[in-house]
Every structure is written in C-alpha cells, then in structure tokens.
C-alpha cells in the first residue's frame, strides 16, 4: 500500500514526461551549440600542445560531449513546482493526506526522468562510439562503464536532493524564479557541466571536491572516461553517499522550519 501510492506518483511523472517528450529532445538539441563552440575552442587551444589541464585532446573532447549530456540527464527543474505548491497552497493536500512530500516529489521526478535516462544513456553510448571512431581509440573502458552506473545513479539522487533543498527556499522568499535560475547556472559551472574543474587549478579544484556539486557531473564523467585514479573511486562514492544523507537531513530541517511559515494561500 505504501509503495502503491508512490508508484502512482511515478506513473504521473512518467506520463507527463512522455507528453512533453519534444521538450526534452529540443533541450538535448540545444546542447549541440555549446558542444560545437567548445570543440572548436579546444581545437584551437590544443593546436600547439599535446596535453592541457591534465587531459589529452581526445579526453577533453570526450569530457565536453559526455558532461553536456550528463548535466542535462540529471537536470532537476521541479524546484519551480515546489515553489508553485508553496505559493499557491498546493502543499495543503499533503497536510491532510498520508503522503510524504519528499517521497512524492522523488517518485514524480523518477517517473519524469525514466524516459530521459533511457534516451540519455543511448545518446551517451552513441557519442562514445562516434568519438572512439573519430580518434581511433577507446575513450571508455569496461571498468569505467561498470563504475559509471552507480556513480550516475548516486549523482542523480544527489542532484535531486540539492534542488529539493533549493526549492524549499520558497518558504522564505517570495520572488524566487530568477534566483532558481542563478543557482542552477552556478551549480552547472561548479559541477563541471561546462568545463572540467581541472581548469581552475589544483587548489580550487580541491576545495570544490569537498562540495556536493563535483559529484553530480565531473566525477561520473571522469569515472566513465577512466581519468580518475581507481584507488580514489571508493572514497568518492562514500562522499557522494554522505552528501545525500546530509542533504536529506537538511531538507527535513528546512521542511520543519518552512512548514511553520506556510500560509496555505489559494488551493
């Protein structure tokens, strides 16, 4: 019975994502322009050098393509729905119904992302194949693929928790739409969604590796491409899991404090 109600929320998410599948397809297509710009930029930079920022030209191109796809794959977007629920009284139904808001949102999100994940993983596979053919070398190893699956699964949950916490700022702030966008862009940069964090140098990279964002894009892509040292992977998985636990606790705290401020306007 407990599972059944969240399964229903999952189905709602799945159906809604299938309804708006063209949006996802165009979202993926819009990733093509930044990829093209970056590929030409790296082409110009690597013209006189073999290795740059600890990566070969082939590794950098692979990172550019795979990070762009991965960041769209895990992309949240439900923070606007949380804001809407808080502002328009949509949360009221969760007060009287035996449904937890976090598992409900998680189930919807999983449903919305199921189709995207399948399409995105196929796109990742195709991209890896094309890059390998162009550069006459395998850009990923079997170990990388095997380790990538748990890494991307944890990255997916971690990103959900980050944006769930961000969404709950709506309890305190009335005009938050622009702020969500600002946070989203900053997180894309800090997660390595545009460039690998190596470009910031070892000190800043080390600082950023303590934050959760690195583990949502940069880490899974580096695992897939085999750039990261294998001995460091178990620790990175532990950090990923620790951040998920921490953010789950933080979200419960935000919910407890925020729901006290909830006015149940509208709805």
């Amino acid at each position, binding site marked *: 019975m407990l599972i059944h109600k969240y399964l229903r929320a999952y189905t709602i998410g799945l159906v809604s994502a299938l309804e708006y599948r063209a949006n996802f397809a165009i979202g993926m*297509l819009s990733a093509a322009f930044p990829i093209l710009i970056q590929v030409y*930029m790296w082409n*110009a930079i690597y013209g006189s050098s073999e290795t740059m920022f600890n990566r070969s030209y082939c590794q950098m191109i692979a990172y550019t393509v795979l990070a762009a796809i991965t960041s769209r794959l895990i992309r949240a977007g439900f923070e606007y729905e949380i804001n809407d629920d808080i502002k328009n009284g949509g949360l009221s139904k969760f007060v009287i119904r035996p449904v937890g808001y976090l598992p409900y949102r998680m189930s919807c999100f999983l449903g919305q992302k199921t189709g995207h994940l399948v399409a995105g993983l196929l796109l990742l596979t195709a991209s890896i194949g094309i890059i390998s053919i162009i550069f006459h070398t395998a850009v990923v190893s079997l170990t990388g693929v095997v380790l990538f699956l748990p890494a991307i699964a944890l990255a997916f949950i971690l990103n959900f928790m980050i944006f769930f916490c961000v969404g709950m700022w709506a309890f305190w702030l009335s005009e*938050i739409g*622009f*702020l969500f966008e600002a946070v989203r*862009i900053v997180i894309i940069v800090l997660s390595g969604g545009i460039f690998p964090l190596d470009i910031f140098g070892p000190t800043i990279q080390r600082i950023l590796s303590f934050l959760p964002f690195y583990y949502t894009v940069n880490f899974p892509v580096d695992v897939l491409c085999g750039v990261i040292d294998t001995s460091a992977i178990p620790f990175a998985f532990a950090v990923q899991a620790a951040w998920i636990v921490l953010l789950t606790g933080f979200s419960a705290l935000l919910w407890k404090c925020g729901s006290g401020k909830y006015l149940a306007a509208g709805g």
Partner: protein
Amino acid sequence: MKQILTAIKKHLILWGILMKNSLMSQLEYRVNFYTGMAMELGYLLAKTVYIIVIYKAGIPINGLSPDEVLVFFGTYMIVTASYAGIYASNFWGMSDQVRNGDLDLLLVKPVSTQFILTLKRSDLSCVIIDVGTGIAAVAIGLSRLKLSVGILSILGYIGYVLAGSVVGYALFLLPQLLTFWFVKTEAVSALVDSFWDFNNMPMGIYNRAIQSVGVFLIPIFVVTNFPALFILRRMEPLYAVWGILCPVLLLTLASLAFRFSLKRYASASS
C-alpha cells in the same frame, strides 16, 4: 523624409517612456530586481569560465592573444545587454500574446505594432551587469595590449556595437515569427537562445566555411565580432562595409517578414 524622421522621433520618445516605466515597475518589486541581477551574475560566471580557460592555457588562439580574446568577450557582454535586457524577454512573450489574443490591444495603438510588441519591456538589471562587465573587460584588454585608442576608434566601435545590436534584434526576431504559424514556440525560443552563445568566442576559432556562413548567410558573427575586430584593427575592408549594410538589410527583411506574419494572426480571444 520629414514624415519618417518625425515617426522615428516619436518612437524614440515612446521607447524612452517605456524603458522608464519598466525600470519603475522593476524597482517596485526590488527583490525581483536584485534576483534578476543575481541571475545575470550567474550567466556572467558561466561565460567567464571560457576566459579563465583561455588565460590558463596562456597561448594564442588562432593568432589572437588572451588579451585580444578578452576584448572579444567584453564586446560580447556589451551587446548581450541589448539581447538579454531589451528584446529577448519581449520575444519570449510573443508566443503568449498571440496565443491569448492580447495582441489585439497592441494592434489598435497608433504606433508600429512591431515596435510595441518587440520593445515594450526591458530588464535594466541585465543591462547594468552586462554593460558594466563588458566595458571593464574591453578596457582591461585594450590597456594590457597597450593599444592607443583615439576618439574615432571609440566612435567607430560604438557604431559597430549599435549595428551589431540591430543585427541581433532582426536575426533573433525572424525565428520568433513562427509563433504566428505554430502558436506554441517556447522550445524554438530555447533553441534559438543557445545560438546566441556562438559569439562567446572570437569567430577566428571556426573554420573558413563556418566563418563565411556566420558572416554573410546567418550573420551571427556580425553581432559582436565586428566591433571587436574594428577596435583591434583587424577588420578586413569587406567586413567593414558589410558591418554597415547588414543591419539595414536584415532589419528591412525582419520588418517585411513581420508584416507578412501578422496577416496570419486571427485574434484568439473574444
């Protein structure tokens, strides 16, 4: 001729009033104004990482030094102010106005429908951030290059910046006109929006074929590359002439396309 000048003057005065109204309404909701600035700062960070990469690499990019690339970046930011702050938000709202029939109200006003539909709103929080950063980047780039810039160079640069803004307006208006055919074009807006970033880097990084297409066929590089090329004294004579002709031709084309598209409008409301 006198009638045309009077009409231009009338629209410029009206545009000033509309901008003032936009600023007043933004300042009424101050948190929105500041969060708008925060969003633009976020975008600025995402664009700045490209410059970080160029400086960290520390090598010329197809003959352009990192300081010269900084001038291109600064110019891109200045022209982006006109895109993000002036016309993009109006373009994104076009689809709604056509779908809901709100365009009816604009059609009966004694001003150009294209003008009022595409320039009604402006977001000055974006303009402040983008122009401020852009001017600072261009100034730093030029001073590091030790390039002496006279008054004529500055005037020419401003001229090409204005011409680039006009090209950007016309070029990005054309795909938005699809809204008169397909009504719901949010996805097209998102796709077209990402096309703007082609100016993030100097056009010199692309091969000759892409450069030719981007200059003459879909003149995206005219938007921000030309002012930077001019002030860095790297502009070819053909580009100098095209940079003046292109905005006139493209604005005429956009205006004709707008009038043609408007005939498709069949008021959706009561």
